[in-house]
């Protein structure tokens, strides 16, 4: 090695490791060996520095990872949970969902067409999906009628959630009325002439319905 070469002697390996560490940290994308070396003083060997760095970060909270041709720091996989901030939120079920659920609970097994017939409006796929996801309902047997429609039934999870031993424990219409539920509930839409429904009206209404 002659004089001129020694002028450009590469920095000590520990220094090269620091350099690679800083560059990979600050870079917005993974850096390849040639990219690293282009920015380092002459005579540096990024491969050696990378190997030292990889050992240094092994088992740490961040790790040196190979990404394609390049290298980058990444969070250790077991600490991924720290990168997500969990927010708990309790929501009320939508009216469509609770109605659909109640129909399934009271009429199970019941097909989608039947739910629609009872609600008087169509049941969106999303509503059923939501209840299926919550595992409050599941698919029952197919009905033995043309088209063999699937039916829905409530699950054990549903019963646990609502503190019921079986769906037969759900109060019937008469009990609902006795509990005052049917009286207190305002009608879903304006009902002409029924501004203040009294108990008698309600009784008549349900006796008719039950025929």
């Amino acid at each position, binding site marked *: 090695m002659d004089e001129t070469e020694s002028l450009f002697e590469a920095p000590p390996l520990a220094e090269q490791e620091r350099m690679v560490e*800083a560059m990979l*940290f*600050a*870079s*917005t*994308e993974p850096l390849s060996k040639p990219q690293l070396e282009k920015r380092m003083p002459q005579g540096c060997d990024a491969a050696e520095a990378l190997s030292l760095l990889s050992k240094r970060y092994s088992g740490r909270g961040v790790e040196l990872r190979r990404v394609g041709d390049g290298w*980058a*720091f*990444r*969070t250790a996989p077991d600490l991924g949970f720290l*990168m*997500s*901030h*969990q*927010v*708990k*939120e*309790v*929501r*009320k*079920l939508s*009216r469509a969902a*609770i*109605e659909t*659920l*109640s*129909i399934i*609970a*009271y*009429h199970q097994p*019941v097909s989608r067409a*039947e739910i629609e*017939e*009872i*609600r*008087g409006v169509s049941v969106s796929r999303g509503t059923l999906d939501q209840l299926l996801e*919550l595992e409050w309902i599941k698919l029952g047997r197919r009905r033995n*009628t043309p088209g063999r429609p699937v039916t829905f039934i409530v699950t054990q999870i549903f019963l646990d*959630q*609502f*503190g*019921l031993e079986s769906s037969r424990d*759900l*109060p019937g*219409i008469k009990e*609902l009325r006795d*509990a005052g*539920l*049917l009286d207190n*509930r305002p*009608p*879903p839409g304006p009902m002409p002439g029924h501004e203040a429904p009294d108990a008698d009206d309600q009784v008549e*209404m*349900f006796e008719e*319905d*039950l025929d």
Partner: protein
Amino acid sequence: MRENHTRSVEAVSAEAFVVDVDGFEGPLDMLLTLARTQKVDLRKISVLALAEQYLHFVEEARRLRLELAADYLVMAAWLAYLKSRLLLPPEPEDEGPNAEDLAAHLAFQLERLEAMRGAAARLMGRDQLGRDFFARGLPEDIERKKIITYKASVLDLMQAYAAIRTREDFKPLHLEERDHVFTMEQALERMKGLLGHAVSWSDLQQFLPEGWQTDARLARSATASSFAASLEMVKAGLIEIRQSGLFEPIEIKVKDQRDG
């Protein structure tokens, strides 16, 4: 001493101050620059000499008919007042602050301004983020995960069901109704078996299944399917069909093979 100051001020004012008054950030800045020409520690500065330097500059500007901003003139008036107070022996009935105190405060202001200039230079000379040192280039975003739990009670369930039940014309499901539909397939089956009885024109009603004529709903279903079935058979060339007028009985008869 005074002669020297005056001369140096003349030299400086001619070259710098008058020509380039815009380069100063106000009269205090100009005073600080003038004070530096005294080449002494700002704490030991002669405020009297400084006042004279400044007043000389203002005269010079007037001579050259340069317009000076109002705050430069206010400073000039104040310095003229300070100068007279500093030169004349204090009179016992003088009111207001002592001239020495005012001069000391001016010196303090200049020293403080210079100190802040120095501090600013040192601050700006520091290593700076994004220039000399860097933050993580590839931050990993924190994902906000929402865990949604749905709340509903038996009461909600009952209220929802009650709400449905209170809606107009609710009917409990009668799934068995579907068994009371006489399908076309059933009608076809039945009629094929009975064709032997229709060698002459016969009312379609006679072919309805037993017991279906009594209930209007059932009769409608059976009539419709039997009529559809008979049309199928006409198409197949098995029977003939006729109706003498609107709402008259529909009659069928087995097609005479010899006619064909």
